[in-house]
């Protein structure tokens, strides 16, 4: 259970948003909507713990995230605008480094299968810098497939993906929800996932 109550955010002297509250239960997903510049990314960075919490409370399994950040991070995957891929490493190397960083040992066949599922078969050993924008995004999404985290926070996951990749991603998200996972995403397009879908519209 991921629960947020009464969050607010100010940047300089501009109040971005205030009073943001919602609760996400296992198997549920939340679509965070809002116009450009309304503070979706700022909210997401606060939720992950990258930006400081000015006001309000975030709880994970009824425990305050501020008090037990490690337990929360263990079950969190965050995919932002920056893909966290090293341009000089291959998708395979990027994937295994990222897995090791969250304390997970990824064996080669699993990693290869994950990349193949995302349509990167044959490109596992190319440096990321020669891949196209969409392929880079696919390589970054591989982190989701190999992760065991319960809560996925995704900032614009569908950007730059072609139709086939969007379908793969939708399938991955559905499977995660099916496994009692939780998904919080922002997107400017309509998102249709299985399970209980909530929607939160940010307004200034």
């Amino acid at each position, binding site marked *: 259970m991921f629960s947020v109550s009464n969050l607010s955010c100010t940047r300089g002297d501009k109040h971005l948003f205030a009073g943001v509250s919602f609760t996400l239960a296992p198997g549920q997903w939340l679509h965070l909507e809002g116009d450009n510049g309304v503070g979706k990314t700022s909210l997401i960075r606060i939720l*992950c*713990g*990258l*930006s*400081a919490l000015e006001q309000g409370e975030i709880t994970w399994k009824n425990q305050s995230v501020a008090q037990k950040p*490690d337990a929360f*991070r*263990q079950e*969190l995957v*965050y995919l*932002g*605008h*920056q*893909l*966290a*891929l*090293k*341009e*000089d*490493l291959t998708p395979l*190397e990027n994937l*295994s*480094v*990222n897995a*090791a*960083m*969250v*304390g997970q*040992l990824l064996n080669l066949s699993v990693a290869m299968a994950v990349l193949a599922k995302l349509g990167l078969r044959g490109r596992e050993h190319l*440096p990321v810098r020669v891949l196209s924008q969409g392929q880079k995004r696919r390589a970054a999404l591989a982190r989701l497939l190999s992760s065991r985290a319960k809560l996925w926070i995704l900032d614009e996951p569908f950007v730059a993906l072609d139709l086939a990749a969007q379908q793969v991603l939708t399938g991955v998200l559905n499977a995660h929800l099916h496994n009692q996972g939780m998904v919080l995403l922002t997107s400017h397009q309509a998102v249709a996932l299985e399970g209980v879908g909530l929607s939160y519209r940010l307004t200034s």
Partner: protein
Amino acid sequence: MSAFVAIVKRDLTLALRRKNEVITSVFFFVVVAALFPLGIGPEMNTLRLVAPGILWVGALLASMLSLGRMFASDYADGSLEQMALSPNSLSLLVAAKILAHWLLSGLPLVLLAPILGLQFDLSTDALWILTLSLLLGTPVLSLIGAVGAALTLGVRGGDVLLSLLVLPLYVPALVFGAGAVQAEISGLGASAHLSVLAALVLVAAVFSPWASAASLRIALES
């Protein structure tokens, strides 16, 4: 611990694929150390006198050359965010990055120093002490440098600020490092200086990853 090893390995692999960055700072050290004997002239006594200082200042500047890049690329591509969100403590991952930085920019200097020291007509004993003092001293440079690099991350014109911030903090390592070689040459024995250097490494190893991690979190907040 596997995360620590993974980060060290990753940074070493990246450096091997972008060799010019490592080679630049090592080459800088070689060139600086080679220019001084040419400029000063073949007066052996003078050379022996200035050798420890020149080699140490050269090592100091060479190690500083690569500091700016320590966290910059991880910051730019979002890897740093992922490190901050990893269930492992950020200090541990930062310690791995510092170790990788030392292996790439400190260790080559340690290995080259005895060869470069020959140009200054240093005795074998003095060369040993020079190598040993650099072996103890260069980790201090990477450790202190990491705090500076983390503090100036994302700041415009951060590179100049970084040198202003870090160079004064390098003074103790320079004084005791160069002092060790001078003490050895003058026959006083270098053990006191080396002990102080070892103490500096230990203190820096405890505080630097923690302080760097705290600064990185601040840099990530904006």
